[in-house]
């Protein structure tokens, strides 16, 4: 039995990956350019209206994670989460960016993730082991919504 497998990526997945690659680049640029950054981040921190679609969330999360491997610079959790949030919103799917922190001994850790927002628990995590709301005491705790 062959332990390795060569799975081919279909044209739709390739298109999704290309969109994800571009969205990752846009996210990185928007984070780096101070002008309008805060306003944009505040907007993506708000829960968007839209339908809930866990399948689409999974599909886009995979596409973004794959696409992030084809960037020259490593993409951080914030880049990946922002890319997923923007792609989901474009498709009318309810989502929001979460930014959280936790204390690990002397160190304060920060993390960003995408949150499905249909009143249920978060459905996907864009780059870290911790899920907010889990009983895990090491979970990242999300920042409060900014006053708008």
């Amino acid at each position, binding site marked *: 039995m062959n332990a390795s497998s060569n799975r081919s990526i279909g044209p739709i997945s390739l298109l999704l990956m290309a969109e994800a690659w571009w969205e990752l680049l846009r996210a990185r640029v928007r984070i780096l350019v101070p002008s309008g950054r805060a306003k944009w981040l505040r907007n993506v921190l708000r829960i968007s209206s839209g339908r809930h679609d866990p399948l689409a969330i999974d599909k886009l999360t995979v596409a973004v994670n794959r696409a992030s491997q084809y960037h020259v610079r490593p993409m951080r959790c914030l880049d990946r989460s922002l890319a997923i949030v923007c792609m989901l919103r474009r498709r009318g799917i309810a989502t929001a960016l979460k930014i959280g922190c936790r204390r690990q001994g002397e160190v304060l850790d920060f993390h960003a993730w995408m949150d499905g927002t249909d009143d249920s628990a978060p459905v996907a995590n864009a780059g870290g082991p911790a899920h907010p709301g889990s009983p895990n005491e090491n979970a990242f*705790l999300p920042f409060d919504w900014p006053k708008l």
Partner: protein
Amino acid sequence: VRYTIPDTVLHRELPGEAVVLNLATAEYSQLNHLGQVIWELIRAGSDRNAIEATLVREYDAPAERIRSDLTAFLNRMVELKLLKAVEP
């Protein structure tokens, strides 16, 4: 002097402390118990004098010490752009 919290600043309470983060600058600061008390007073709209009066009333410490600690805290937070000073 009154202080306001910029609308790009996020706040999170953790066990025994709190963290404030400015999205625009990526600067953050940890707040100990006293810092959290001051932060809540600012959130509630208290000006510097009112904050100082509350701390002097609530804490068993020399007024001069409270004044200098408060000044240092507020200056540091303004420097990090986690607070904005608004002159009357």
